[in-house]
């Protein structure tokens, strides 16, 4: 009410105000007004008047200060081109002036940046080393290949799980809190006290350890909590981080701090304890929090998946490996079983060492080759190492085989081993072989309880018998009443001679003596009995003479005149014949001595 009342009352200087605000009616009136208002000073304010440098220099500092306080942006904008060209000119004139001025700033800044870069590198190297052999690393290597990034980069990206719990913006000079953001899950102490305490600690460290100006405490580590402090000229950014944050975050903090310095240059400079001016800096700080949340979120979401995939892969690999191992083991066991069933092979020891199989055992020289058996399995020869010692197997099959090998019997001989380990030899064989086998068996029947050669028939005996039968069946026929051999009978006589010669030869080879060879002469009953008796004798003698001529020893040939008393049938030419009979020598093999049991 008061205000409205004062507003309605006409002010005393009403007319003057009106005069200055309304457009001038004439040039003369305007001049008059100026003279009334400014008096003698009017001359110096005229735009046409030369302004004295001294007068301006008196008020320049104050004017700039006031202008800065009221229209800071305008003045700054106006000054930019001048300042820029001033710097340019300074550099062109003498570069040393500026570089000397900037040196204290550039030095620490460069050092800081290099140190940060080295820290980044070390961290990434450590991470890479730590994870290069973990199960996940295979997945990461794949990811690195797929995305064309370095393995170290992928490891860094995937392993860092951390949370920025609190971000404090602190006024550097006073240590007062300007603004803060806290993540939802985090519990925080009174931020006003925390920021003051952090400032005190900073001061304490700086004072106590004689830190060069420009250096400051930038990390506090307590267990898994890290406090990262980023100091600017006016403000300090402190981040409470739980977990293992990447050095990139440091870069982000620096950027945020720079942005805040730019946006709040004048409130920071003129800070008198009023926090409200920094209310909008929450956005910057929140950005710091948000970015970290995202990383953490990913980490949380993907970790179980990663773990599951990793476990799955591991299980699959393990399964495949176990499967292969089991299969190889089964194949090996089957091979061992086969070896154990094979006569003449004895497995003494077998084991699995790493991926390889080892075996030692005994092998009969006659046994099946273990290598040949191995070739039939799916096992690879390089997987298997075998050592075989030779031995003699007493297995029946081997005893028989061994005797077969030793005796080398002719095809006509059969060897049989009965369950009582008695070797039975049967069939025909040359006497020489029969004698050889008997001698060999007598020397010591390896693996035999006894042996029997009774069923062995000497081959020569059979030959002699066959010749005997052949000779004795033939007859040499004569003409009636004559000692002349009938036409065509000469061949029979020849054959008889040859067969007899063979008998003689066989006997001689065996060192035997042939018994008597009887040439029996016959005649038919026609004519005188006495004449016939003589005729039969003459016929026998004829054959005798013929055989002697063929080389049969005379002393062995005996004649016998049987006259007409041995008729076959009447008128049978057989009644006029000479037949031959032989006494064969008794053929005996060496009497064997059975081996001692």
């Amino acid at each position, binding site marked *: 009410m008061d205000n409205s009342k004062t507003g309605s009352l006409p002010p005393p200087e009403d007319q003057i105000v009106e005069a200055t605000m309304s457009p001038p009616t004439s040039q003369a009136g305007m001049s008059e007004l100026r003279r009334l208002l400014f008096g003698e000073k009017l001359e110096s304010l005229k735009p046409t008047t030369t302004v004295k440098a001294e007068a301006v220099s008196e008020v320049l500092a104050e004017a700039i200060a006031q202008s800065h306080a009221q229209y800071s942006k305008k003045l700054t904008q106006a000054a930019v081109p001048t300042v820029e060209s001033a710097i340019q000119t300074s550099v062109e004139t003498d570069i040393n002036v500026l570089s000397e001025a900037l040196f204290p700033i550039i030095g620490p800044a460069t050092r800081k940046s290099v140190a940060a870069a080295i820290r980044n590198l070390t961290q990434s190297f450590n991470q890479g080393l730590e994870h290069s052999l973990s199960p996940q690393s295979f997945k990461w290597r794949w990811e690195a290949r797929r995305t064309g990034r370095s393995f170290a980069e992928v490891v860094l990206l995937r392993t860092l799980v951390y949370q920025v719990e609190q971000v404090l913006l602190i006024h550097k*000079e006073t*240590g*007062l809190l300007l603004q803060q953001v806290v993540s939802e899950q985090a519990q925080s102490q009174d931020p006003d*006290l925390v920021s*003051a305490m952090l400032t005190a*600690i900073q*001061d304490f460290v*700086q004072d106590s350890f004689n830190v060069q100006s420009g250096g400051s405490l930038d990390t506090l580590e307590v267990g898994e909590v890290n406090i990262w402090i980023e100091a600017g000229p006016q403000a300090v950014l402190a981040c409470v981080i739980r977990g293992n944050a990447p050095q990139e975050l440091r870069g982000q903090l620096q950027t945020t701090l720079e942005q805040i310095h730019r946006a709040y240059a004048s409130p920071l400079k003129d800070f008198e*304890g009023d926090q409200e001016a920094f209310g909008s800096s929450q956005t910057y700080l929140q950005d710091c929090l948000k970015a970290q949340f995202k990383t953490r979120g990913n980490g949380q979401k993907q970790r179980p998946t990663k773990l599951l995939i990793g476990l799955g892969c591991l299980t699959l690999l393990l399964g495949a490996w176990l499967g292969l191992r089991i299969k190889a083991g089964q194949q090996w066991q089957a091979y061992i079983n086969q070896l154990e069933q094979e006569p003449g092979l004895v497995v003494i020891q077998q084991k699995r060492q790493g991926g390889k199989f080892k075996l030692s055992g005994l092998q009969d020289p006659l046994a099946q080759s273990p290598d040949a058996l191995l070739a039939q399995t799916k096992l690879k020869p390089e997987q298997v190492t075998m050592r075989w010692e030779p031995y003699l197997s007493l297995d029946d099959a081997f005893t028989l085989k061994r005797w077969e090998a030793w005796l080398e019997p002719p095809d006509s001989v059969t060897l049989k081993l009965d369950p009582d380990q008695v070797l039975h030899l049967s069939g025909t064989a040359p006497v020489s072989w029969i004698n050889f086998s008997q001698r060999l068996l007598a020397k010591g029947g390896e693996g035999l309880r006894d042996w029997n050669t009774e069923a062995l028939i000497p081959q020569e005996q059979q030959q002699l018998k066959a010749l005997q039968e052949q000779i004795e069946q033939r007859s040499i026929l004569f003409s009636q009443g004559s000692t002349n051999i009938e036409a065509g009978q000469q061949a029979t006589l020849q054959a008889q001679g040859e067969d007899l010669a063979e008998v003689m030869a066989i006997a001689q080879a065996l060192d035997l003596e042939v018994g008597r060879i009887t040439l029996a002469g016959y005649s038919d009953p026609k004519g005188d009995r006495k004449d016939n008796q003589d005729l039969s004798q003459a016929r026998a003698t004829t054959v005798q003479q013929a055989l002697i001529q063929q080389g049969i020893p005379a002393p062995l040939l005996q004649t016998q005149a049987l006259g007409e008393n041995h008729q076959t049938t009447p008128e049978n030419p057989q009644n006029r014949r000479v037949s031959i009979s032989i006494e064969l020598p008794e053929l005996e093999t060496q009497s064997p001595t059975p081996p001692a049991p």
Partner: protein
Amino acid sequence: MIQKKVCMVGSFATGKTSLVARFVKGIYSDKYQTTIGVKIDKKVVETGPQPMTLVLWDIYGEDEFQNIRMSYLRGAAGYFLVVDGTRRETLDIAIQLQAKVEAHIGPVPFIVMLNKCDLEENWEVTPGDIDDLQAKGWTVLKSSAKENVAVETAFSKLAEQMSRPQSNSIPWEAA
């Protein structure tokens, strides 16, 4: 909310910490004070046009050399000079400290706290001394942390002084 940094300055055992303890309830234990030489507390004062948060830096006092960490005073908007009334030398030290502080951070409001007024009969600081201080234009208050005398008043008064526009707010006038 307006915040101000306030420091407690004074010799050893003058009662700085007790005054703060009487005034606030802080979160940090006293051991910080001996560890890094400062203990920090906070109190909201409801005097003046709007409430003000005082962040109190209780600086560890050393008798022999008075070499308190001046860096802790940086940015302070005001401070208390705490004197033990029963020990005359603490007043002398306070006067020296005031000069040091002012040289370091400039002319900011401060209040001299003549503490332990519950033992006034044993005081070595005389009324004459007090007059001398007041003659310099200093604000002097007799206080007792033990009996809670003038504690609230002192902090309110300093808060009020700090909320006034500072004479050094325009740089060229100060220079």
